[in-house]
Structures are given as C-alpha cells and as structure tokens.
C-alpha cells in the first residue's frame, strides 16, 4: 500500500466519521420500476437465470424454499383466500405483480452483520457479495427484510447443468458452490465491462450504456436502470440520467424513511422505506381504473 493510498483512505475514513456515511461514490446504480407497465410475464427472471448462472434446483429443493431466483416475480391477489372473509366473488382488478430483486440498500441491513465482511458497499453504491470470502453464516439473509439473499445449501451446479447445458454458462461471472450466499448484483459484470470500456476510451459512462439483463429484456420497458449520480451538469450540458429524472419527477429522495412529497400523489415509493434501509430501487404505483 502506497503512502498516498494510506492518506486517501484515512481522510475518507475521517470524513465518514465526522459527517456520517460514505461520500466518494463513483456511481450509484439505481432503478425505477413502473408497476403500471409491468405485466408479470416473468421474462426478467428468466433473463436473470441466463445472465447470472443461476442454478435450477428442481421441485424438491424448490419446495424447501431453495429456489435461486435472484429476481422473482411476486404476485398478490386483492381478495383473500378461501376460508377468509368473503368480499367479492372475483379478482375483478386482476393481479398485483412485483418484480423483486436486491434493493441495493444504501443502509443495508445485511452488511453490518456479516462476520467476515463478505458483504459490503462498493464505491458504485452496490451491495456486493464476495463469494470466496463468505463463510455461510447466513446472518445477512436473516437480516434482509426483503428476503432477497439466496444460500447455496448444496452444490447445485452438480445437477443444474448436465452437459452440454454448462456451455451456456456466462464466463464473466462464477458458478457458486455449496456454503455461499448469493444475490442480485445489478449485473455487476455488465457494469464492469462498460466502465472498463469507458476508461479505455477516456470518457464517462453514458446514460443507458449499462443495461441489466432484466431491464434489457422487459417487454414493456417497465424497468429503468442507471446512475443515480447522473445529475444535470451545467458545465458540460450533459443531461441528467433517465433514472435520476424518474426519481426526481416522483419526488423520492435518498436518506429518508418517509418521503415528504410536494405532490403526494406522485407514484414513486420504496418498499419498506420506513425500515431506514434506503433502497436504490424505486417502484411506481400500479394503476387501476376503479
């Protein structure tokens, strides 16, 4: 470690101590998911399986809750089940769909409980998981209010990719083995590739240049992904990123447990915001004609 690195790290630590939090983010990747457009088709989830080497665990293990769907499509009914109080005869407003992936919280509850710092916050604002540091304590999973961490109870790879299925595996990321926690990375391998390319071309990452697998495939374009630090730059005239604009438009701000909106009816919200997890994923209300 060079002296300059040491000094940089120390001053960063001091700033964090004195002002609270980390300040030198290079990016802060965020999302906006419009539930008015989401149709619950599941394309995002399967795209995630294809991109991120997610294991198929089979019926028996799925029953035990071991499905490895980093991005899962939750479906809720308005009307209660059989046996509960009867209200109307039918689900007359359809279903409520919710694509749920790691919310990449800025105040992630999973991070401080990791005994070996396998899960930590990157200067990209990502909640990262270091597979070969993970010892499988599962504290992080236990502490995640969104239940978005998936544990390798078995060596799923042994059955998941019988030849020649293994030829499809994405060489940009690893296949995880037994005893390791895994979760959505916002397609960190894609972020990495774009950042490297931008660096080589001596320029900044452009808005829209990084697309996660889910946002790229989404049939209705419900998922918007981008850099939350991409604000309007008056000097260069570079416009703010799409996702930043969406957050601003819907008046959702970081660092809050309750949004104080000028226009309370704007649709943006963050799931379980009141837990002070400060997620980087904003959802826009589902809309129904009633």
């Amino acid at each position, binding site marked *: 470690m060079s002296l300059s690195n040491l000094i940089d790290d120390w001053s960063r630590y001091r700033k964090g101590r004195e002002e609270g939090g980390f300040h030198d983010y290079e990016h802060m990747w965020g999302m906006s998911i419009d539930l008015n457009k989401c149709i*619950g088709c599941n394309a995002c989830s399967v795209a995630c399986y294809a991109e991120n080497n997610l294991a198929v665990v089979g019926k028996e293990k799925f029953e035990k809750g071991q499905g490895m769907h980093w991005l899962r499509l939750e479906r809720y009914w308005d009307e209660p089940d059989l046996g509960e109080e009867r209200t109307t005869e039918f689900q007359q407003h359809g279903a409520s769909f919710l694509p749920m992936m790691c919310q990449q919280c800025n105040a992630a509850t999973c991070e401080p409980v990791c005994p070996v710092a396998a899960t930590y916050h990157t200067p990209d604002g990502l909640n990262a998981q270091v597979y070969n540091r993970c010892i499988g304590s599962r504290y992080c999973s236990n502490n995640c209010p969104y239940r978005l961490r998936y544990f390798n109870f078995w060596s799923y790879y042994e059955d998941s990719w019988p030849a020649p299925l293994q030829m499809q595996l994405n060489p940009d990321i690893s296949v995880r083995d037994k005893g390791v926690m895994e979760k959505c990375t916002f397609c960190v391998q894609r972020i990495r590739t774009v950042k490297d390319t931008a660096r080589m071309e001596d320029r900044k990452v452009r808005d829209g240049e990084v697309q996660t697998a889910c946002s790229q495939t989404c049939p209705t374009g419900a998922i918007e992904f981008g850099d939350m630090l991409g604000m309007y730059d008056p000097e260069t005239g570079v416009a703010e990123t799409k996702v930043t604009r969406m957050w601003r438009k819907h008046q959702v701000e970081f660092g809050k447990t309750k949004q104080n909106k000028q226009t309370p009816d704007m649709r943006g919200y963050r799931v379980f915001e009141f837990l002070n997890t400060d997620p980087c994923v904003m959802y826009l209300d589902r809309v129904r004609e009633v």
Partner: protein
Amino acid sequence: MGWGGVGATLVGCDMPSTVTLEEGKEEVVSYLVPEEFVIPGVGVWYASTCRQCPSGCGIHGRVREGRVLKLEGNPESSINKGRLCQMGQAGLQAHYNPDRISKPQIRRGSSLVDATWEEAYGLIAEKTANISGSKFAWMTGSVSGHQSVLLQAHLESIGSGNHFVHETINNAIWAKVSEDMLGDSNPRIRLDKAQSVLSFGADFLGTWGSPLHFSTEYAKFRTSPRGTLIQVEPNMTLTGANADLWVASKPGTEGALALGIANQLVSKHSLSMSGLPSSVQSLIRSYTMDETVTATGVDADRIADIASTLKRRSPSVVLAGASAQGHEHGYQCVAAAMVLNIILGNIGETIESNGEFAYASMAPVSGNTQSLVAFSQAAADKRFDVVFFSGVNPVYTAPKSLGLQENMANIPFKVVFSHFNDETTAMADVVLPLASGEEDWGTHVAPYQAGVGEISIQQPLMEPLSKDTRGFGDILLTLLKKRKESAYEGFADYYAYLRNAFSTIPAEHKNGASDDQFWADVLSAGLIDVGVTDKPLNVTAVEFNMPKELGNSSDMVLAPSARLGFWDGRHANLPWLQEAPDQISKVVWDSWAELHPSTAKKIGVKEGDMVKIASASGEINVKVYIYKGVHPDVIAVPLGQGHDAGFSRYAKDRGVNSLSILDPKVDKMTGELALYSTNVKVTKAAKTDDVLVRFGGSETQIGRKLVSTVSADVYERTEGGDHVA
C-alpha cells in the same frame, strides 16, 4: 424460389461447403489460429430469429469463444423492438438441451435404433420413389420464408398438395372472421391508439397473435392518456391479470355478452347499427338487458358499465381469443365481438390494414387445429402411405378422442423431423435430428407485422453441437436433389441457396449496395424490410346467428388454457421454464387445476388436494389451486405438462395433459377444435405423495405496502399528458 426462377440464377459451384461465421472459410479452424474478429473474453453479437414460437421475433445472440451465451431482442425488429419473453430467453436451453437427439433413427421392429444419414435418406428415397402425390403429406407447424418455398417445391416434386399446418395456439377463427367481415385475415390492432380494450379471452400479452409485440404496444396503451382494459374470460390469463376490470364468463356465453353490450350501445348510447345485415340487427335487438343477463349470468350493472366505458373511452378495440373461439359456435362468438368493433366505429381507427406481404411464396402460413382434425380423419381413411412431420407434435396436442394415435398406425411410413424424442417421434419410422434454432439458417416472415414486410434472417450463432444434426432447409434441399430436381444441384447447401436467393432479390431492396455488401448488411441487421402492398379494409358484416340454448348441463367445463411459457407443451423440457413459477398460480414443475373457492368448497377440496376430472373422452387426476380468477362452473388446467417419458428428463412424469381428455367437438363454421366446450365431472380423488409446489408464502399483501395501487384518475392528474419515460 423466393425471388426469381431457380435455373436462371445459379451462380456456379464455388459456394462454401461448410458454413462458418466467416464467409468463405471452408473448414473449422482451430483456436490456435482464431478468426481475426475473435477476441478472447469479448462477446460479439450476431442477429438471428427466435424460433421458440411462431411470432418471429428478431434476436441478438452473444457469442464468446465460439459459444452462444445469451439472447436478447433485436432492437431493429419491428416485432419485439429489442425485447424478449421468457420463452425466447430459454431458447438457449433448447439449443444446449442434454436430451437433444443427435443421430438419425430408423425403426427396427418395435424400437428405433441409431442409423446414418445415408441409411435414412436411402430408406426415404425407397419409400417415396414411386409414390403417387395423393398418398403423400406434410404436417408442419406455422412456416414461412424460404423453408416454405422449398417445402412447397418438395410437395410439387411428388405431385402432392397435402400440407397440414397445425398449431394448437392460434387465431384461426379471429382470422376467418376478419377475412369475412373486413376482407383481411390479419388486421392491424392499434393498441397504441386505443383508449379502451374489451378482450374476450384474447391473451394478447401471453399467447394471442404476437404477444411480445403486443406487450410493447401495451406499454404505449398504458401511458397517459391511459387506456382501460376489460377482459372477459373463464379463467384468468396473463392479460386478464393486468385488466382494470376482469369479468368471469361461462364458456360459450361470450357471444351473447358481446351482443348484449351491442344492444346497450345502440339502445342507451345511440350508436348506429347501419351497415349491419338486418338479421344481425334484429339479433342484437333480441339481446335485451334481461335476455343477456339470463344468457350470461353477468350482472346488469356490469354490462351497462362495460358499454358505457367503451363509448366514453373512444376509440376502443374489441378482441376475441382462445376461450371465445373454442366452441361449436366459436365463429359466432368472434363475429359478435367483431360486430362490436363495427358499431363502435373502430374499423379504420384502431383496426387497420397491415397490408399484404409482397412475395406470396414466402408469406407466412399459420397453423390451426382444423388441420389436425382433418389429418386424423385422413389417416383413419388410410389416405396416406408416407407422411413427413416437422415442428409439430400431433400425438401430444391431439385430444385422445380424435383417435389420432390409433390412426397413425394406418400410415405405413412416417418421417419425423425433430430436436427431441417426443410422443410423435415414438411412432415414427424414421427420425431426422434437426439442427437447433441457434445452429440453422433460415428466413422467416412473421405472421403479424405492424404494417411492414420484414424478412427476418436466422443464422447460426455457433457451430453445431453435434455433427449428425442437419438444418431443416438442408434436409429439404437434399430431399429435392434426391427427387432428381436438377434445378437444385448447384446449391451445395441451404446457405448457398439462401445466399443465392438474396443475390436475386429485386434491386430496389439493395439500396445500390454491391451484392456482398448487401448480404453483409442483411446479416448484420438480421432483417430486411421488403415492404407490403396496400390492401384496404372492406367492411362487409356477415350474417350469423347465436344459439340461445347452450345445453343446460350441470357439469363443469374444462378450460385448457395456454400460457406464455410452456406454450402448447413444446417447452416443458426447458428447466428454466419448469422452475419459473406460472404467472398466475405460481406453481412450479407441475400441472394444476384452477378452481373457484365456492366450487372447491362444494367438491370438498383444499389447495394441493387431488381431483379427478372426467369427460366423456377420458379422465385425468390433478392437484388443485384455488383462487377467485376462475368462473365457478369452470375448471382450468393450463397446458404444458403430461408428456411421455421420452420427452426429456425435465418433463418426465410431470403433471397431466388437459388436451388429452377433450371431446372431439369442432366449431361448425370453420372446423376448428372447440377447446373450451368439454363438459367434465370433477370429484375429489385420493391424495398422493406428490405435492403441489408453489412459489410465495402469501396470496395477499397482508396490509403491507409492497405493491401500492392508485386510481387512474390520480395517475392522469399527476402524470397526464406527460409521455416522458
């Protein structure tokens, strides 16, 4: 030929004999000397066409170190605009599937044994040598492009006109009604312009028409000014799950409801019926509110509400799909929906002409189920000595009551082109292993295109995994050559044939580019738009009646609904799709029957319990899922599972095939199978050890704000007129 004649356009014999990604290379070069554009660690994207369903979406395949790793939508494609559905994403697992067949098989006694291509071709040549045309038939799925051209050429070489085109999931009756009433079997639906959609079971986000295309249009439909979606169907489809208003219908009453709404529009909202035949006008008059309520069981308030919404939220569009057309009077139900479009003035507004594809020989031929019925009958009558099958699995998709499986025994020689062993290959005399969608060449013309005439190119995204599979076009060419068709001798392979075809394309499509440059551009873009010819809609509403009595059976009706996922059962061998929870029930790796809570109570079953579903044609035992998205008189068993053991390790011993117990009823006007008209008795059956596995612990949000909902009014107030993002 797609363009020009065969003989006039030969370009000599210097065509590459082995196709690599680099044109002109004659052999596979080892990675010691990589092709110059291959950079280890860097993915390169190639354009091709998705073959997972007949919609014909453009795709990009990411190729790295000689392997295709990921598929995405091709942004150039007007169909999917860069997007891809879960079936498309899982195309890779069809390609890399561990259960693909890699060698030709020939029947020896009761079993199929591996053979060489020479043996297979030799046997085919022997059996077809002196066959008379009427004794030969092809059965395929929907087909288009140059494969269609060669297939027709093969039929002509034998002198046969027997081509059965079969798809279980189809729009055949909608197409017939559109043809009869609008003069265009494939009108353009402008969801982007519509302010309201009334859909009678048209699952346009899942299985109707071109689902991915309509999903992209749906996003525009839901952007301010936000359109209203009303879905009427016996059990909830993906589209129904996104409806503002979902109405449960008893199967077969869709037409009556449409006429009842028409009556309200005319009597309460002063819309005009002029232009309709007087018999249809009096039919509409006869469906008074009382009559409609009696016929459909839908509340009067609801019917009035739907009518006023359609009037208020204009322009509207009315669609009809599988559950509306699947009856003996299916044509009338769809016709009644189309009459609504005429009354509402939607023709020319939200229903336009798509034009006509300019090159008839390459135009898409879409499958239906009438062909399945006709084929089974023809086989029963012992009309055929030799039948070729490709892209279909009729032994699985045909209801047992059609007797197709038994009738197949009447065909002495059956050749099945396939990627996998399935129910149909099990009955074959020769099985020819096909190259996967990611290994083959082809050109495809999508059946639904929004006013454009794109030809989408399918090109290999990697070398074949097995040296003993062959492309569909290559096999057709070989068969044609063996028929001594000298016109095809100049083509070393299907690539050479396609390359030549694109050399002879009319110059107006080349934009002045040289021949090689033009070909490179087409491959790079993945498609070329050759335009369409105008074909204006011509409204001529036809006469039809509506049966008042639908048979007062106390039995329930079986709904074999289809899903974007397993489709008609063809994708049950893809593990990603088996493990992807069903969009509605969230069941994985299994079949299930959907029941309304009140019906479940009557039968005495809880979720996961087994029921026996018995029709006049057979019975199945299946576990139940209970929710309020199904009509109380309906039991829905979505398609996909229930395959024989031969169809891959992933589909083996899994669930049931609800198509198998359907009665052999058909729509009387078109001969299409009436899929939603089988009466069944449902009783509780003994539970087995096999449990119903579903994703998710809770069916409701239990008051948590996970998915928050606002009214459309709020949305319009805050975001109205704002089309950003």
